[in-house]
């Protein structure tokens, strides 16, 4: 059966990339869901650029504290060993290379790993938040997004037409159709959604995909 992954499943797949003991920052929107899918037995420390390291799950209604929010303005819960700091210190940590993985949403990713995730036509007053800092500073940049736009246009493109967040920063792209690694040779198609073929995914992708020799179905 041919299926597209839902947002929860994309987040689940992304969370599998979090190594034991790693420091992870989750961007605005879909990436935030990853917090609920940490693989069993792994310790992951979530950093949030508003000044917190080591927080827990999203808060239930009863737990909600509006002075305890992640960078998506969602109340989260405290965990032992966590700490708070100010915005300048948070970005020292980010630019200084102490974030192992950042998961970001995107409008477009190019075949070279360029990322466009903040500006779009008709909305000149939006901004990049901490996205540029995170894309420039994190060791590994994972993009989670839908493979195509609402109108079916590819988001994985030869060259970004939307304003860039950072050039050549993306490591891995996880969509509702595929897991794609950005390499020096180009975009390597590592995993594919159940029931989909390589030509079908390529048809929805502007950039050329190089099927991996060990290409497999997305594992969950």
């Amino acid at each position, binding site marked *: 059966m041919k299926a597209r992954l839902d947002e929860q499943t994309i987040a689940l797949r992304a969370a599998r990339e979090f190594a034991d003991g790693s420091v992870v920052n989750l961007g605005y929107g879909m990436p935030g869901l990853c917090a609920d899918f940490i693989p069993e037995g792994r310790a992951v420390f979530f950093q949030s650029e508003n000044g917190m390291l080591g927080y827990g799950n999203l808060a239930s209604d009863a737990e909600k504290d509006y*002075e305890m929010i992640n960078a998506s303005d969602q109340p989260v819960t405290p965990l032992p060993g966590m700490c*708070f700091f100010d915005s300048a210190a948070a970005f020292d940590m980010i630019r200084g290379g102490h974030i192992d993985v950042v998961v970001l949403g995107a409008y477009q990713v190019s075949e070279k790993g360029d990322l466009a995730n903040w500006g779009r036509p008709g909305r000149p007053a939006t901004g990049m938040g901490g996205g540029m800092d995170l894309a420039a500073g994190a060791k590994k940049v994972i993009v989670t997004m839908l493979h195509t736009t609402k109108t079916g246009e590819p988001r994985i493109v030869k060259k970004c037409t939307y304003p860039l967040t950072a050039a050549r920063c993306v490591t891995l792209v996880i969509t509702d159709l595929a897991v794609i690694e950005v390499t020096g040779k180009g975009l390597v198609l590592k995993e594919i959604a159940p029931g989909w073929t390589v030509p079908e995914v390529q048809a929805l992708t502007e950039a050329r995909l190089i099927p991996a020799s060990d290409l497999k179905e997305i594992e969950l």
Partner: protein
Amino acid sequence: MPVNKVFKSCDEAVAGIFDGATIMVGGFGSYGGLPINLIVALSRQGAKDLTVIANMGGVGFELSKRIKPGGYQDLGVLFEHGQVKKFIGSVPALGGMPPDSPLERMYNEGRVEIEVVPQGTLAERIRCGAGGLGGFYTPVGVGTVVAKGKEKKVIDGKEYILEMPLTADFALIKAHKADTLGNLVYRRTARCFNPVMATAAATTIVEVDDLVEVGQLDPEIVVTPHVYVHRIVEVKQ
């Protein structure tokens, strides 16, 4: 004895903010660490042609209902009142919301100028200004619109752009506790931009949940030393 820094109300605390002033406003998003009582007092006070430096432009009361039941006030009120001529920050408006925030509306009508700054660069430009430095080179924004018009430099084979310091005439900030000298501590993620901005303004005005006597704050845990704080208002939660 040192001057009395304790004010009875937010209205008294924002007195003297002049037309054309540059104002930093603490907080992060549209709630949590935002000095909302000072913001609302400033909207009553009416100073105009302000340059506002804040992480986010606010959503305004109407849109806020989508975020939190019943809605809430945020920085949007200053744009609604037409008090701002320029906004400097990382998230003028949220792309995930309709284009109806007061700032976005005013911008689309050509009534306010926006300088968009990556969030970490914003924090560092403020720290740079607070520390009396002239500017710094950062890799953030290289190859993007942010680099436009800025000096570039290659250092050890890596590209950087020059970013300039930010300071302000006034900072409006939110802290958890102050002693009467002006030493401050914060609570959880309400810390965010507040301590950074507190250090970068000629006059820093703070609203706090609790005002305590001198000696009641452990000297090891003070985040903002009192030399940075000029006016304090207690607003009990």
